[in-house]
């Protein structure tokens, strides 16, 4: 598949990258691993005039510990992060979600920042330009209807990051740097809930680091998939438990992950959370499995993940 024409620029540091973005007058895209961006550009889902490569920025490629937090640079690859001691020993949910992401080869290329900021997906959206033109453009392509649910007023594309779910369950926060300066927000605040434009990032902002409080946790990640390698989650559930309470995060259905607090670990409250998660999940037929099955599996996988997480704690 041939790429459309664009310029290639490599940034040496974050300020230079932002300057390049401003020079391109908004028609630029940041490139890290490229495992999400390049296929999108090939399919003409994104048509940047300039691609700004962030891989030369050393600062984005480090993992450090500071004031009780693990600070993960956005350009750390999924494979490097998976093999990091703190992740292995303290964050089982994150370890499992990293291990379940795509396949080893793509884990070695894909970065944690890029994984969080991957665009939402839909069976009728991630297609070639010819296919989409024949079908008619949907909301996400700038059109005025949804091709999956006729008459719908919103976009139902699915957010398919595995690792954002486990990071949410671990109460992570992210640092953003852009033309308007730096800001630090909770990971939850990154999602707009609107499938057309799934993130609350301002133009030109770069996700620079992810902060996770270092406290031993027990946890698990359950992923519904059909091939067991390379594929995106059709549903993902991450659970992390610290000191008798925890967080459940459900994703892969709809444009933003949903977080549910687990106040205590009694059987009744576990069941309530699982049922509540199922009720709130609104899958539509825009993925490889039927919406009914995916909805049912929300409760099943939530219960399964919590059970596995609790066993580890004992």
């Amino acid at each position, binding site marked *: 598949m041939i790429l459309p024409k664009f310029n290639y620029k*490599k940034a040496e540091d974050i300020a230079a990258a932002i300057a390049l973005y401003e020079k391109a007058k908004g028609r630029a895209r940041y*490139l890290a691993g490229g495992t999400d961006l390049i296929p999108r550009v090939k399919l003409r889902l994104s048509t940047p005039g300039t691609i700004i490569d962030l891989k030369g920025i050393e600062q984005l490629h480090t993992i450090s510990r500071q004031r009780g937090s693990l600070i993960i640079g956005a350009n750390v690859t999924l494979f490097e992060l998976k093999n990091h001691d703190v992740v292995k020993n303290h964050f089982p949910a994150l370890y499992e979600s990293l291990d379940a992401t795509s396949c080893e080869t*793509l884990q070695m290329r894909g970065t944690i920042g890029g994984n969080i900021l991957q665009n939402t997906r839909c069976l009728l959206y991630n297609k070639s330009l010819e296919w989409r033109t024949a079908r008619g453009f949907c909301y996400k392509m700038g059109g005025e209807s949804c091709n999956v649910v006729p008459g719908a007023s919103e976009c139902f594309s699915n957010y398919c990051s595995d690792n954002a779910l486990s990071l949410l369950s671990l109460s992570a926060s992210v640092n953003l740097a852009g033309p308007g300066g730096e800001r630090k927000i909770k990971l939850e605040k990154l999602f707009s809930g609107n499938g057309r434009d799934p993130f609350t990032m301002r133009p030109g902002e770069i996700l620079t680091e992810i902060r996770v409080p270092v406290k031993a946790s027990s946890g698990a990640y359950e992923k519904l998939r059909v091939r067991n390698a390379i594929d995106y989650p059709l549903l993902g559930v991450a659970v992390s438990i610290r000191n008798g309470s925890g967080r459940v995060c459900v994703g892969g259905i709809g444009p933003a992950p949903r977080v549910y607090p687990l106040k205590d670990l009694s059987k009744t409250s576990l069941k309530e959370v699982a049922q509540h998660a199922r009720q709130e999940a609104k899958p539509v037929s825009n993925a490889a499995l039927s919406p009914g099955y995916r909805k049912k599996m929300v409760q099943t996988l939530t219960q399964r993940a919590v059970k596995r997480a609790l066993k580890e704690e004992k």
Partner: protein
Amino acid sequence: MKAVKVNFRINDEPVALEVKPYETLLETLRERLDLIGGKEACGLGSCGACTVIVDGIPLRSCLVLTPEVDGASITTIEGLARNGRLHPLQESFMEKGAVQCGFCTSGMILTAKALLDRNPRPARKEVVKTISSNICRCTGYKKIVDAVLDASLKNKAYHINN
């Protein structure tokens, strides 16, 4: 669009090129350098038929822009044989009949090589996990896994030198 100058090593030979900024590594290898071992199948990073090794890491060359690999050291399937002798993995693939149509083979061998380079004696489970990065649409995975395990048991010294 301004051409980009790149310098890298391919199969231990230095290469200096001027490429289009929107050119993928796969295009450069196949169309400029006649290294046609890497194949384009899906073109979207799903299948792994275009895998090459860049700085010791297996990469899907259809997802990598050539300007990104400036300064890197690249190994393609053409660079595995040494002094007229095939790499143990290539021999094992032939001995075990792990090739059907052959389209995925170069990607499979390079993905497996990267595994054996970091873990010379993988368990069957680990081989399966690594090989699941690549798709063989003839679905002959069993013989491919057998071949990788067979190669891992061959002469260790020879293996490390390759």
